[in-house]
């Protein structure tokens, strides 16, 4: 598994550098000005890296709750806002030597060949992972894969409504002990036993039968 990860990392690193390198080799903007400068190239590589990493996380996350969505899309949004902030006029005037990349985002990210390069880089980095995982699922499915597949086929049952688990009465008490306890008065008048007419899927039949035996009054 380590070798596998190393191979994927090497491949992705090479893709993320060399595709922009080849695309920017003698490139210029659509109005003739430079786009193959150091700052634009760095921005291009950085953006494609961020998107590749986010896409990998997308593939690796198994359960997408609202929190996951927020953080993943949020991190991309924060990256975009931070990029434009760092490359804005204001920060350049305040801290001139620390933010020399001024204008790079506005000039570089407008170009369609830059976006096409980013798109190509990201896709080329993700495709092997997707293909490999799909192949694994097809050829060597693990149990969790099979379960998920079956669950998808059959459809998930709607989640059972939340109910407090029925009170388990101890099975070991003798009738003598019963006679000294409070008895069934509360239970009978509380109509709780009525629910056991239709045992839910949460309980298997055996368990429901056991419970009914204790309470005597239920009918299945």
């Amino acid at each position: 598994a380590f070798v596998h990860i190393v191979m994927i990392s090497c491949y992705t690193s090479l893709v993320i550098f060399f595709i922009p390198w080849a695309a920017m080799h003698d490139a210029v903007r659509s109005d003739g000005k430079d786009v193959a400068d150091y700052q634009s190239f760095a921005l291009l590589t950085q953006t494609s890296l961020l998107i590749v990493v986010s896409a990998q996380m997308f593939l690796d996350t198994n359960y997408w709750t609202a929190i996951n969505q927020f953080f993943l899309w949020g991190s991309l949004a924060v990256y975009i806002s931070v990029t434009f902030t760092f490359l804005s006029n204001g920060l350049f005037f305040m801290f001139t030597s620390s933010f020399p990349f001024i204008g790079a985002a506005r000039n570089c990210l407008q170009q369609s060949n830059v976006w096409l390069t980013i798109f190509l880089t990201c896709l080329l980095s993700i495709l092997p992972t997707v293909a490999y995982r799909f192949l694994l699922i097809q050829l060597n499915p693990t149990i969790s894969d099979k379960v998920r597949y079956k669950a998808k086929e059959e459809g998930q049952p709607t989640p059972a409504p939340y109910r407090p688990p029925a009170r388990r009465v101890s099975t070991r008490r003798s009738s003598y002990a019963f006679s000294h306890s409070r008895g069934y008065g509360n239970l009978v008048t509380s109509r709780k036993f009525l629910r056991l007419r239709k045992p839910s899927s949460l309980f298997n039949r055996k368990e429901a039968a056991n419970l009914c035996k204790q309470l005597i009054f239920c009918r299945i």
Partner: protein
Amino acid sequence: MMASSYNAKEEDGRNSNSSTHGGAAVAKSKKPDNTAFKQQRLPAWQPILTAGNVLPAFFVIGLIFIPIGIGLYVTSNNIREIEIDYTGSESGSPCNDCSTNFTWNTTTPCICTVNFTLNQPFEGNVYMYYGLSNFYQNHRRYVKSRDDSQLNGNIKSLKEPSKECEPYRTDPVTKKPIAPCGAIANSLFNDTLELFHNEPNGRTTAVPLAKRGIAWYTDRTVKFRNPVGDNLSEVFKDTEKPMNWMKPVYELDPSDPENNGFINEDFIVWMRTAALPTFRKLYRIIHKNSSSTLTLPSGSYTLKVAYNYPVSSFDGRKRMILSTISWMGGKNPFLGIAYITVGSICFFLGVVLLIIHHKYDSRNNSADIPN
């Protein structure tokens, strides 16, 4: 895109430890609240890589990429470009004399001319670039050797440039600060290129070259500013020119005060360091003229070079490039070819996976899940 299954995660938080502390619920209950968030029952979406997702995705990507690639390739092929290498390192080439006889202290520039022919006419705006090879503008120490506050017109930085500019910070003889300081400014490209069209009737006309509008808008208006003052030579009077320059910075373009000093567009273009050792930078623009449709008709041309920039010491090469531009930039067939390649690989991979899926699908469906 992925198979979604509504999966409310249920984790029983009921078996908490408060029930072991005796029936009296005087002690604060340690059970987490019965909210969806704390009981980890948030609605979730579960991406599953099934054949129904992945295979159509591969095919769709393949089908999208191939036309994009073809479009890019065709666009790139329609761009006209010509490169004229005028380094003059080989004996017999036009600029060989200038290249071999270069000295640093010449007052009169060495002029050499290169003749070339355009086989196809250039239409629309034609952009003239100078290209350098084996020139590492991306060397780290070189890239840091500049003072952006000085270039922004900060008077304090003008008199005291940043330490990053060493050893191009102060003039060794006069001890005055150098404006603009740093190695990038010091190595400014100072060849002058002129283009002449040799018409069939024997006349030679100069092709009009526009020198404004070659730098980025943000660079020209925000990043580079002259220090405040009407007379530039007054403003720069206590500074020295960089060591390898022939003229001081306020004489870069005396005819146009908007293009003089730090805001000279050739200077700005040079200061935007290139990412790769072989690069091209915009030098001049030949605007399309409204009278005739051909900006540069096919025929014989002459390039006249004032050879000021030495590249032979590091085996560099210099060239002049004339190019038309499209929506995707200059002539770069790589993107087109890459898109076509990736699209076909995707499509092919999709077909292979489809075959594998058909062969092995029965294994998936009949497999028993051990309980």
